C-alpha cells in the first residue's frame, strides 16, 4: 500500500459524534471534586493558614499529607507537590480542598485565610540572580573571527510567553485502592507521571497505574504539568479514601500551567568579505520559579542559535534563570522558536545593512550535507533547503513581491518576510540512547488481530492512525486488524514520552521492526508477543552534554516560510495576505495527517508572532488569563495559509519519515516580523509584534 495515502483516522468516529471520553466526561458518582488554593503572592513566606470548620466528607490536603517525598519528579526534583515554607510564584499550589459538592468546595476555599510575609520577587530576566542552568557551545576560534572582522554587528532580541491554549484544560482523576494508585487523565507522557506519582506516594513502581484518557490537545503543555496534578490527586485520594478529580477552569489553566519561555538573546556577529564568520551569542530563558523542563528546553534553544547557517566560529552561552513567575516548560518547538527568531532577524538586519537581499544573503550561508553542526556534529543527509526555497518562491511569489514592496509609500504598505529553519528530530543529544531506551511490543491474538503496545499518546496528532498504518503495512493486512488503545502503564512498556517530534520517527521505526519480526515468526491460531528495543543508528557521532559536542540529533526536518502582510499605517492594523510554508518531514505517513500538522503548527506560530501576547503586572500576576485577553487565531485571521510538503527521506525512520510535529511552528515568527519590517521600513527585534508595536513604530516615523 502507499503509506502516504490518507485513511479515515482511527479516532475519528467517537470524536465526531461526541462519544469520546475526555477526563471530564467520566461519571462523578462517588468522586470528590478537588480544587487548589494557589498562592496570590509572587514570593512570600507562609506564616499561617486558617481553614474554616469542614463539613463531614470534606478534606483539606497539603504538604503534610504527602506519604512519600513532597517533590514532583520531573528532571530535577525541586517542584513541591504542595508548597512548604514559602511560595515562589502566583499560582504555586498551597493545598487542595476536596469534597462531594463543587460549590461547597468553592465556599470552603473562599473561606481559607492565608497570612503571607511578602518577600521581594524577581520578575524579569534582567533582574534574575539565580541561574538554574548554564551551558556553553564552542566551535572554531571566536576571538580570531572578531579580530579579523571587517565589521561587527550587535543586537538584542526578545520573545514573549506563549500559552499552549489546548482546547481541553488540564485534568486528572486519582484513586488509591487495594494498596495501589490509579491516575487517569489528559496527558502526553504516562511514564513521566508514573515515576512522579511513585515518588510522591512512596510506592513501588508496581503499585502505580497511569492511564491516558482521550486528550484534547497538548502541544507540550501536557508534558510535565500533568505529573504535578497527578501527584496532588493521588495524595488527596490517599487521604480521602475516594477518587478525587481535579479539572482546571480556563483562567486557572492559563495562569498556573507551563508556557513557552520568554527569551532575551544578544548576538555579536563578525563579517569578513561580506560573509558571516563568527557569532558570539548570549541566550537567556526565563525559567520561572522551578526548574521543570528548562534544562532540556535551553539545550535545544542554544543548539539552534546559529540557525541553518554554516558559521566557522561560534560561542554560544545559554542560561535559564529563575524568576518568581509561572514555571515555563515545553511548547511545540521547545526553545527553538526563540533562538531561530533571533538569528533570522539578525541575518535580515546584516543583509539589509550590507545592501543585500536577505534571502540571497541567507542562501549564501546555508549548511550543506557533510557540514558540521553548531555542536561539531554532522549534517549526515542531504540538506534540501535550496530546492525548497525555489518551491516556496513558486507558491508565494516571494522574490517578485519582495522587490515590488521595496519602496512603498501611502496608507497601505505591504511587506513579505522569509525564514529558514530546521528541527532536530528526537530527543536532544544522547537522550534516546541513555535515558529513554524505548521498548515496544506487539501482541498477536489467536484471531490474528495485532495490538500495538507502546506508551505514546494520541493527543490529536494522529499517532493511533500512523502507528497502525505502519504495522498494517508490514503485515499487509487491513487497518481494522490492528488494535491500539490509549496507553495504560499496566499494559504497555515504556516507549518514551510523546514529545520532541520523536514518536513517529523513533517509536514508529521500532514498531516497523517489531512487525517484521512478528511476520517472520508468524504462526496462525497462536497467541504471540514480540518486543523491540531502541538501537542508536551506527552513523551517529556520540553527543556529550559536558562538552556540547557531537550529533545533537541524528537528522533534521527542514522548513522555509514566507509571510505577506499589509499594514494600514493609519490604524496600525496589519492583515496577513498569505502564509506559505514548504516543509520537509521526510515521507508523510498519511498525507492528510501531516498536512494537518503543518497547517495547525504554522498557525500557532503566526499567533506567537502576531497576537498572542502574555505578560505579568508589577506584582507578577499574569494579565492575560482568558481567551478574551489572550487571543489565539480564529478561522478569519489567516484565510490564505498554504503548506506544501517536500520529501527528503530519512533512511532510519519508518519508510523515510522524520519528526514532524514541532517543525511548522518555528519559522513563522521571523517570517511574519520580517514582513512587517519591510512594510515599516524599520528593523524589528521582538515577537510578538502586535498592532500596538506597529503603532509605536509609525508614531516614531511621523516625528
Amino acid at each position, binding site marked *: 500500500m502507499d503509506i502516504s495515502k*490518507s485513511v*479515515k*483516522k482511527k*479516532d*475519528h468516529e*467517537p*470524536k*465526531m*459524534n*461526541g*462519544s*469520546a*471520553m*475526555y477526563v*471530564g*466526561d467520566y*461519571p*462523578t458518582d462517588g468522586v470528590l471534586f478537588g480544587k487548589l488554593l494557589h498562592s496570590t503572592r509572587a514570593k512570600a513566606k507562609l506564616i499561617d493558614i486558617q481553614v474554616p470548620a469542614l463539613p463531614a466528607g470534606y478534606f483539606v490536603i497539603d504538604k503534610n499529607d504527602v506519604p512519600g517525598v513532597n517533590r514532583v519528579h520531573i528532571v530535577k526534583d525541586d517542584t513541591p507537590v504542595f508548597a512548604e515554607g514559602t511560595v515562589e510564584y502566583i499560582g504555586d499550589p498551597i493545598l487542595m480542598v476536596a469534597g462531594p459538592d463543587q460549590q461547597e468546595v468553592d465556599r470552603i476555599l473562599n473561606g481559607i485565610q492565608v497570612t503571607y510575609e511578602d518577600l521581594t520577587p524577581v520578575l524579569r530576566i534582567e533582574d534574575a540572580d539565580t541561574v538554574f542552568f548554564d551551558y556553553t557551545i564552542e566551535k572554531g576560534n571566536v576571538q580570531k573571527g572578531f579580530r579579523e572582522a571587517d565589521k561587527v554587528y550587535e543586537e538584542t532580541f526578545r520573545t514573549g510567553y506563549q500559552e*499552549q*491554549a*489546548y*482546547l*481541553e*484544560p488540564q485534568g486528572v482523576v486519582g484513586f488509591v485502592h487495594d494498596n495501589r494508585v490509579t491516575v487517569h487523565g489528559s496527558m502526553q507522557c504516562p511514564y513521566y507521571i508514573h515515576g512522579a506519582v511513585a515518588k510522591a506516594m512512596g510506592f513501588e513502581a508496581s503499585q502505580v497505574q497511569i492511564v491516558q484518557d*482521550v*486528550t*484534547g*490537545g*497538548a*502541544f507540550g503543555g501536557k508534558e510535565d504539568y500533568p505529573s504535578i496534578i497527578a501527584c496532588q490527586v493521588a495524595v488527596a485520594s490517599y487521604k480521602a479514601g475516594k477518587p478525587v478529580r481535579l479539572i482546571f*477552569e*480556563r483562567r486557572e489553566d492559563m495562569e498556573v500551567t507551563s508556557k513557552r519561555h520568554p527569551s532575551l538573546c544578544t548576538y555579536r556577529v563578525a563579517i569578513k568579505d561580506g560573509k558571516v564568520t563568527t557569532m558570539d551569542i548570549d541566550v537567556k530563558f526565563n525559567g520561572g520559579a522551578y526548574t521543570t523542563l528548562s534544562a532540556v528546553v535551553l539545550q535545544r534553544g542554544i543548539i539552534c542559535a546559529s540557525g541553518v547557517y554554516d558559521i566557522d566560529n561560534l560561542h554560544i552561552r545559554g542560561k535559564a534563570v529563575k524568576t518568581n513567575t509561572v514555571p515555563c516548560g515545553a511548547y511545540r518547538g521547545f526553545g527553538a522558536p526563540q533562538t531561530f527568531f533571533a538569528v533570522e532577524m539578525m541575518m535580515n538586519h546584516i543583509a539589509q545593512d550590507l545592501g543585500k537581499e536577505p534571502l540571497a544573503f541567507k542562501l549564501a550561508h546555508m549548511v550543506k550535507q557533510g557540514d558540521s553542526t553548531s555542536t561539531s556534529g554532522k549534517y549526515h543527509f542531504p540538506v534540501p533547503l535550496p530546492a525548497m526555497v525555489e518551491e516556496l518562491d513558486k507558491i508565494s511569489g516571494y522574490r517578485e513581491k519582495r522587490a515590488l514592496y521595496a519602496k512603498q509609500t501611502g496608507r497601505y504598505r505591504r511587506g513579505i518576510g522569509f525564514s529558514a529553519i530546521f528541527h532536530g528530530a528526537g530527543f536532544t543529544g544522547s537522550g534516546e540512547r541513555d535515558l529513554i531506551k524505548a521498548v515496544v511490543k506487539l501482541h498477536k491474538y489467536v484471531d490474528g488481530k495485532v495490538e500495538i503496545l507502546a506508551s505514546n499518546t494520541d*493527543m*490529536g*496528532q*494522529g499517532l493511533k492512525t500512523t502507528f497502525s498504518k505502519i504495522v498494517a503495512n508490514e503485515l499487509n493486512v487491513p487497518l481494522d486488524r490492528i488494535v491500539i488503545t490509549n496507553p495504560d502503564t499496566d499494559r504497555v512498556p515504556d516507549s518514551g514520552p510523546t514529545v520532541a517530534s520523536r514518536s513517529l520517527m523513533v517509536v514508529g521505526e521500532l514498531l516497523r521492526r517489531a512487525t517484521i519480526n512478528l511476520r517472520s515468526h508468524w504462526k496462525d491460531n497462536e497467541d504471540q508477543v514480540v518486543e523491540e528495543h531502541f538501537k542508536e543508528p551506527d552513523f551517529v557521532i556520540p553527543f556529550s552534554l559536558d562538552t556540547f559536542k557531537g550529533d545533537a540529533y541524528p537528522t533534521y526536518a527542514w522548513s522555509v516560510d514566507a509571510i505577506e502582510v499589509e499594514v494600514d499605517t493609519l490604524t496600525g492594523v496589519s492583515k496577513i495576505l498569505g502564509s506559505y510554508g514548504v516543509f520537509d518531514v521526510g515521507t508523510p505517513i*498519511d498525507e*492528510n*495527517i501531516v*498536512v*494537518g500538522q503543518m*497547517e*495547525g*503548527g*504554522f*498557525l*500557532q506560530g503566526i499567533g506567537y508572532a502576531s497576537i498572542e501576547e502574555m505578560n505579568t503586572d508589577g506584582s507578577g500576576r499574569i494579565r492575560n488569563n*482568558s*481567551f*478574551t485577553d489572550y487571543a*489565539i487565531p*480564529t*478561522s*478569519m485571521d*489567516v*484565510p490564505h*495559509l498554504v*503548506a506544501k510538503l517536500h520529501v527528503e527521506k530519512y533512511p532510519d525512520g519508518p519508510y523515510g519519515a522524520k519528526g514532524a510535529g514541532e517543525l511548522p511552528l518555528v519559522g513563522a515568527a521571523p517570517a511574519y516580523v520580517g514582513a512587517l519590517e519591510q512594510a515599516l521600513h524599520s528593523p524589528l527585534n521582538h515577537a510578538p509584534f502586535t498592532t500596538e508595536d506597529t503603532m509605536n513604530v509609525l508614531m516614531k516615523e511621523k516625528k
Partner: protein
Amino acid sequence: MRDTGISFILNGEKVTYEGKANDRLLDVLREHFHLTGVKCGCKEGECGSCSVLLDGQLANSCMVAMGRVQDSEVTTIEGYSKTERFKVLDRAYAAVSAVQCGYCIPGMVLASECILSANPHPTEEEIRIGISGNLCRCTGYNAIVKAIKIASEEGNGLW
C-alpha cells in the same frame, strides 16, 4: 403544561428541568442530562466548544441560563449525530482528516450545520465567518473549511 420546572425539547424529546432558572445550560446538559459531547473549554463564551443549536441557531451553552430555554428546542451533538445531515458531514470531515484532538469538533459540527442550513452553498469566506466563533488550536482551520465545502457539494438537497 406542568407548573413547575423548565420544559423544553432536547434532541427531539420533551424534557423538564426541575432546577433553577439561572443554572447554566452547559452544566445542566453535561451533569443532569449526561450529554458530555457538549464540551467545556472556557465557560465565558469565547471558545465555542460548548456550542449547541438553540431553536436552530448556534449558541454557546455556557452563556445561556436555563430560564431562556423554556419552550425552546435544544440540539446537542448527541441528537444531531443521528441525522442524515450529520452523515454527510461525518464523511466529509473524515475524508480530509479534519478531526485532530476532537475537543472543538462537536461545536464545529453544529456550526457547520448552521452555515449550511442558512446557505447550502456557501463561499469559503462565508464558511470562515460561520466557524469564527469556534476556536480550534490543532488544525489551522483549513481542513475544517474544506470539510464543510465538501459537505455542501455532496449534501445536495439535504440542506
